[in-house]
C-alpha cells in the first residue's frame, strides 16, 4: 500500500541517517535527515495549504522527506517560536506569514522572538490580496454604495478573526470613511462566510483564497480588491485605489528558518523553491486559490518582512488600544 510504503521510507531514513551523518565527520551534507516544516496554523487553512503545495515538490528536489508539522496557537506565534529556538541546521523550517511575522509580534506584545533578528528569511512563496464581499441582497456593488449606506446607518462587517490582516483592513477603511465600521469577528473564514451568505452580516473582509469560490459562484458580490492592480483571475473586480481609497495590502506566506542558517543552505532552498514557484503546476494551483507566486531573493524577502512589520505595527497599535 502506498502510505505504508512511504511511511516506512521516512522511518528508515530517520533511523539510519543520523548515524551516517555522524560518520561523515564535521561537514555533513545537507539535508542529512527529514526536514520539519512547521506550520503555525491548524491543518486545513490557507497557510497549511500553501505549505503542503510547496512541500511535496520540494522534498523530491531535496531528496529528503519534508514533514509538515502543524503547531497552531497564539496568532501563529507558538510554532514560530519553536523554530526561532531550533538549531540552525536547515532541518527545521517555518512557514512564515503575515500573522506570525508582521501582526502578532505587535498584537501580542509579550512574544519571545524577534520576527527579523531570530530568523533567516529564505523565500516568499505567495501573496494574496484581500477582498471586501457583500451579500447580494444588500445591493452593495462598489465602495460608493458601501460608503453611502455606512453614512446612513452604519454597517457591520465580518472578518475571520481579530488581529487578522482582514480585520485591520476594516479598521483602516473605517478610518478613511470617517466612521468606524462595526467589526464582527468570527473564528475562521468559513463561519464568517456562512453568516454573510445567510444574511446575518451584510459584509465581510476576506482573503481571496477563501472567498474566490463564493465570488465565482455569485453567492457573494466582490466589492473591492486590495491589490495594486486588478487581479488576473478576477478582472471584473475593481481595486480600492480605482474607487478612490488608498488601500493596498496583501497577506503573504514565505519560507524561513532559525537565525544564522548557513548561507549554502539558504541559497539551495531559495533556488529549489524558485524553480517550484516557476513551474506551471504550482502557478496553476496558486492561481486557483487566488494567489500569485512570490519571487524574491532571500535578501529581498527579509527586507519585505521588515517593511511589513513597519507597515502593520502602527495599525495594530491603533486597534489594540481599543479592543473589540
Amino acid at each position, binding site marked *: 500500500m502506498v502510505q505504508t510504503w*512511504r511511511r516506512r521510507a521516512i522511518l528508515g531514513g530517520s533511523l539510519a541517517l543520523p548515524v551516517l551523518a555522524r560518520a561523515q565527520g564535521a561537514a555533513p551534507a545537507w539535508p542529512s535527515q527529514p526536514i520539519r516544516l512547521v506550520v503555525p496554523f491548524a491543518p486545513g487553512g490557507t497557510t497549511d495549504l500553501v505549505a503542503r503545495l510547496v512541500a511535496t515538490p520540494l522534498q523530491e528536489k531535496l531528496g529528503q522527506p519534508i514533514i509538515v508539522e502543524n503547531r497552531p*496557537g497564539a496568532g501563529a506565534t507558538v510554532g514560530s517560536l519553536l523554530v526561532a529556538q531550533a538549531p540552525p541546521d536547515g532541518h527545521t523550517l517555518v512557514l512564515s506569514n503575515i500573522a506570525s511575522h508582521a501582526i502578532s509580534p505587535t498584537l501580542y506584545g509579550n512574544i519571545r522572538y524577534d520576527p527579523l533578528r531570530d530568523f533567516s528569511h529564505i523565500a516568499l512563496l505567495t501573496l494574496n490580496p484581500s477582498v471586501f464581499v457583500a451579500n447580494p441582497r444588500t445591493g452593495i456593488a462598489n465602495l460608493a454604495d458601501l460608503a453611502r449606506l455606512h453614512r446612513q446607518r452604519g454597517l*457591520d462587517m465580518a472578518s475571520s478573526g481579530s488581529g487578522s490582516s482582514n480585520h485591520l483592513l476594516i479598521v483602516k477603511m473605517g478610518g478613511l470613511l470617517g466612521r468606524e465600521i462595526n467589526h464582527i*469577528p468570527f473564528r475562521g473564514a468559513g463561519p464568517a462566510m*456562512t453568516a454573510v451568505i445567510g444574511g*446575518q452580516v451584510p459584509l465581510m473582509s476576506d482573503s481571496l483564497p477563501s472567498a474566490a469560490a463564493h465570488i*465565482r459562484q455569485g453567492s457573494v458580490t466582490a466589492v473591492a480588491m486590495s491589490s495594486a492592480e486588478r487581479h488576473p483571475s478576477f478582472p471584473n473586480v475593481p481595486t480600492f485605489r480605482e474607487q478612490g481609497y488608498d488601500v493596498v495590502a496583501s497577506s503573504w506566506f514565505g519560507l524561513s528558518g532559525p537565525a544564522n542558517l548557513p548561507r549554502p543552505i539558504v541559497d539551495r532552498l531559495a533556488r529549489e523553491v524558485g524553480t517550484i514557484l516557476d513551474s506551471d503546476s504550482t502557478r496553476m494551483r496558486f492561481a*486557483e486559490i487566488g494567489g500569485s507566486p512570490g519571487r524574491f531573493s532571500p535578501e529581498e524577502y527579509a527586507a519585505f518582512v521588515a517593511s511589513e512589520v513597519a507597515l502593520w505595527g502602527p495599525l495594530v497599535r491603533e486597534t489594540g488600544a481599543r479592543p473589540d
Partner: protein
Amino acid sequence: MELLISNLLHGFGVAISFQNLSFALLGALIGTAIGVLPGIGPVATISLLLPITFGLPATTAIIMLAGIYYGAQYGGSTTAILLNLPGEVSSVVTTLEGYKMARNGRAGAALATAALGSFFAGTVATILVAASGPMLTQVALSFGPADYFSLMLLGLIIACVLAQGSIVKAVGMVVLGVALGLVGTDVQTGQQRFTFGIPELSDGIGFVPIAMGMFGIAEIILNLERPESRSVLSTKVGQLWLTKEEFKRATPSVLRGTVVGSFLGILPGGGASLAAFGSYMMERKVSRGKHLFGQGAIEGVAGPEAANNAAAQTSFIPLLTLGIPSNAVMALMVGALIIQGIQPGPRMVEAQPDLFWGLIASMWLGNLMLLVINLPMIGMWVKLLQVPYRFLYPSILVFCCIGVYSLNNNVFDVYMTVLFTVFGYVCNKLKMEPAPLLIGFVLGPMMEEHLRRAMLLSRGDWSVFIQRPISATMLGIAAFALILMALPTIRKGKEKAMAE
C-alpha cells in the same frame, strides 16, 4: 424523486468501482483504529494522510477521508463503552450508560447497539443529505448568532440531565466547565485570559487531557482502589448479542436519536456536538427504560449513538452545498479538494456530479462496511475485558499517555492530564459528576462567541434574543426544561418538610 434515484444510482456506480471501494474500506479501517486509540483523532490522522491523497483522483481521495471521519465515530464508542475512555465529545455521553452496561456484563449488547444504531442512523441521514441537502442548507443559514446562543444555552441546561445526583451540583459543574473553557485567547480581542503567561494555554485547555484525566485515568485509580468492583468487569461477560427485549427497547431510541441528530448536524456552529446528549436527555425523559438510567440503560447508548452518527453525516451538508466546512475535519477536506483543483461551493453538485453523488453513495457503503467489520469484532473486544485488570490498566495508561503527547508533540499536555486526573479523582470523592463539566467546557466558548457577536450586531440590545423567533423558541424550551427539572426536587423537599 426519479431524478434522485437516478442520481443515487449514478453515485453508486462511481462508489462501487474497485478503487473507490477499497479506499472507502481503507479509510473506514484507519478511522476505526484511530477512534479506538485515545487522543489520536481524525484531524491529526487526516492531516497526516493528506499528502497521500495528492496522487489519487479527487473522488477517491475524498471518499477515503470521509471514511476516516465516520470510522473514527464508530471506533470512539468502542473505548467509551469498554474502558470509559471518551476520545471525542460525542462519546462522553456513550460512557454514561455504555460503560455501566459493560460493568453489568452487557458490553457485547452495548457495542452491538452502537453499531446497529449508527448504521441505521447513517442510512437515514445519507438519504436526507441526498434528497434535501440544499433545502436543509436554508435552515442552517437562517440561524443567526442570537439563535445559536439560545441553542447553546438550551444545550447547557439539558446537560444537567446527564447527572445522576443533585441538579444544583450538576448545574455547578456545567458552569465550572464553562469557566474552564474561558482559559485561552479571547477570540475577539486576542487578549490572553487566565493563561498565567503559559503559551500552551493560549489556545485553551485541550479537550483530550481533560477527558483522559477525568474519565480514563481517574477511573483506573478508582478501580484499583476498589478491587471488588473490577472483578465484576472481568468475570461477567454474559451473552454477546442483544436479547429480544433489549432490541425492542433500543429501536424507538434509535429512531428518535436519528431525528435529533440529523437536525442538529446541519447547524455548522457546533450543532453536531449537541446531538449525542440532546438525544440522551430525550431518552432519559421519554423512553420506557428511563428508570434504568444510571445503571446501564440500553436506550442511553442507542439514542446518542444514532444521533451522533446521523449528525456526522448531515454535517456534510454545509460543505457540499455551500462549500463551507462545519468542523476541523471538513476544513481539511476542503484543503484536500483545493489541492486537487476543485473549489467546493454551491455549484459542486452540478460541476462535480461524480464527486458529490459518489461521496454520498460511499457514505452509505462505508457505513455498511463498518457494520460488517465491527459486528464480528465485538466478540474480540469483549474478550479484551477478560484480560486481568492488572495487565489492562498499564496498557490503558500507555495508550493514553502517547495519545495525549501526540496531540501537540508537547509534554505540557501530559502534565495537564495529571492535573485533571487528580481533579477527576477529587470530583468522584465529592460526588461531583464530570460529564456535565465536559459539556460546559465544549459549549461554553461557542456560547460566549455567539453571545458577543449577537450583541455586536444588535448594538447592545438584549431583546434580540426574544425578538428572533428561533431564539425565542429555544429559550422557551430551555425555561420549560428548567421548570421540569426543578419540580421533582421542590416536591421532594416539600414532602420531606411535611414528613418532619
